[in-house]
């Protein structure tokens, strides 16, 4: 469309995607995993709700947290929950964490040409009881890692985890001397997401944190800043 000045005006394209903000992270230890997400749901500069869960417990040994568009997160979690039940009915036992990780990857790739706007992290204990974290992109690229963060606060959290879990860029401690204990990991996860809440406007309100080991899943919740 041309104006009298002869400039081309760009028509605003409607997008099926919006970002509802929020941060997620997970850390794996030798025999446990810690997974956490905040619960704030935003739209633009407003808060839509202070409590909208981004966390889903899939089995006693495996959970998922997702950031991105709440509608897609909700639907993906619904589908995952049903698929986990179908698996359990068919095979007579719950899905292993590796199976869940692969399934999530496939569910995401299935929508390769109209992706779920979700940035997921799957965490749990694997068949040997070793803690594991899997991180994804929107179309299902799967990578097993020791820790991961996603969402609006991920660029604030990831460097902290690099430094505190992988001991990168540290001169004060040697890798051989460091043991990632459960208490250390829980405190680290709590501090990391709290710090993200301080600076990132889309992270805040409440945090759902969950510790997974061979005994099962222990869920907890705490408050962040409401501003």
């Amino acid at each position, binding site marked *: 469309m041309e104006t009298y000045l002869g400039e081309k005006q760009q028509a605003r394209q409607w997008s099926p995607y919006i970002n509802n903000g929020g941060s997620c992270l997970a850390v794996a230890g030798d025999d446990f995993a810690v997974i956490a997400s905040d619960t704030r749901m935003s739209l633009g500069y407003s808060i839509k709700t202070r409590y909208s869960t981004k966390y889903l417990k899939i089995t006693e040994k495996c959970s998922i947290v997702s950031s991105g568009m709440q509608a897609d997160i909700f639907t993906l979690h*619904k*589908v995952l929950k*049903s698929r986990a*039940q*179908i698996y359990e*009915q068919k095979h007579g036992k719950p899905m292993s964490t590796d199976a869940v990780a692969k399934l999530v990857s496939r569910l995401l790739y299935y929508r390769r040409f109209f992706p779920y706007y979700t940035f997921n992290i799957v965490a749990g204990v694997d068949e040997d009881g070793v803690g594991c974290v899997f991180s994804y992109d929107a179309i299902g690229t799967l990578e097993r890692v020791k820790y991961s963060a996603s969402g609006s606060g991920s660029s604030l959290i990831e460097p902290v985890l690099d430094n505190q879990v992988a001991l990168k860029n540290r001169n004060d401690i040697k890798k051989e001397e460091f043991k990632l204990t459960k208490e250390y990991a829980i405190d680290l996860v709590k501090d990391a997401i709290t710090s993200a809440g301080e600076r990132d406007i889309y992270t805040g309100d409440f945090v759902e944190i969950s510790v997974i080991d061979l005994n099962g899943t222990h869920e907890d919740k705490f408050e962040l800043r409401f501003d």
Partner: protein
Amino acid sequence: MFRTQYDSDISIYSPEGRLYQIEYAMQAVAQGSTALGLKSKTHAVVVTLMRSSDELSSHQRKIFKVDGHMGIAISGLTADARVLLKFMRNETLHHKFVYGSDLPTGEVVSSLAMKSQRNTQRWGRRPYGVGLLVIGYDGGKTHLYQTSPSGNCFSYYAQAIGSRSQSARTYLEKNFKEFPELGLEELVLHGVKALKESSGKETLTKLNVGIAVVGKEQKFEILKPNKVQTYLDQILQTEGEIEIENENENEKDQEAETLELKLD
């Protein structure tokens, strides 16, 4: 008298207005080993006797979970039961996915009844040769339903199906008035006692007795053999106690005699 003339196809009525093929299908249910169900205000229980074809084989499973709030016990053609189970699981999962809540037991039983009836009126199909006892907890109430090859389904306070089920049914008829107020443990005990009535010569062991429970704050759960054994022990103990009481009475008589002698 007319049986053999009017029983060759599902679509043929007898002069008395009966469909013999359906009745023969119900006979298949009656051939299966006993399955019984009973309910209180807070819990519903199924108890089954699992057969094994010979010593080398495993015992045939008769209890299956449909969803967290619902399960079934079967009697009859196990293969047909699997088809109906898959149907029920699909219905409940679909409802949960779409509406986010548990599918009421009565609704899935109605769908099952419709499905069963279709097979009694379609060319080339045969009735499902299996009867189900469906137990569930939803809407704050316990449910027990029986479905049959005919497509009829009824709600029950307690019911038994399969071979020798009449003995179990008689026991349940005698005791069902007290079921509503019972706790879970006593309810299961009644179930096991009822099963004992129809077990005939077969001894009840933790391997051939199946028990499942569902109710308020109790997700559908098939009890593990060790838990089953605790109930069997209680039954045996009660029987043993009756014998011991008789012995004690004899002993007391003897003691009384010796005292009298001492006083002398």
